[in-house]
């Protein structure tokens, strides 16, 4: 079975400093991994995805993540935080479709990113 663990429930950084949001996954298959962001009272938006191509994945708004199979990790980083980055971030693994199945997304518990001025 697939699962993801987000290692920090809350991360606080100052504006202009680097962001690191940690995610470990468990998967019996070659996984597809995603990071989604949820701004307050908004829906979910895809930041980036890993689907077995390049291990360093670049996403929107300057975010990137590196897939490390040896560490079963998919940490999200950004060199310089902006106030608008304050949001909830979800690491997600997809469970592949089986017979007659569509597959589904399995979400981590979420990490709240606070950005201080």
């Amino acid at each position, binding site marked *: 079975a697939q699962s993801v663990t987000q290692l920090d429930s809350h991360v606080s950084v100052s504006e202009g400093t680097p962001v690191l949001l940690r995610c470990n996954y468990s998967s019996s298959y070659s996984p*597809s991994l995603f990071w989604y962001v949820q701004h307050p009272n908004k829906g979910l938006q*895809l930041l980036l995805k890993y689907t077995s191509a390049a291990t360093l994945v670049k996403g929107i708004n300057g975010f990137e993540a590196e897939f490390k199979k040896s560490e079963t990790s998919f940490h999200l980083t950004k060199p310089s935080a902006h106030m608008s980055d304050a949001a909830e971030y979800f690491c997600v693994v997809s469970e*592949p*479709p089986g017979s007659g199945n*569509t597959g*589904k*997304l*399995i979400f981590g*518990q979420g990490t709240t990113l606070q950005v201080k001025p």
Partner: protein
Amino acid sequence: DTAVSQTPKYLVTQMGNDKSIKCEQNLGHDTMYWYKQDSKKFLKIMFSYNNKELIINETVPNRFSPKSPDKAHLNLHINSLELGDSAVYFCASSPRDIRNTEAFFGQGTRLTVV
């Protein structure tokens, strides 16, 4: 144009009532989902439909009944609402194999049962 739209955005209702949430997608996707986000912001799949056919039912109480009149719509009807049903419900859509693409989410419906 909104890709995945849900109505209503907010829903406040009394225990025991029956209510529906509607979802429509204009992306041409074959697959639609309902996810529930609890008070701790944890998201869990409830249902998925592929081309109007129920594919995933994640041990959701029978009071929840999804209906897909066509592949662009997936509505969620809830009978005999309980306090524990209070949550944010997200509709989403994707192509059939979700591994190599993304799911597009609606804005969510915040359901409050009083």
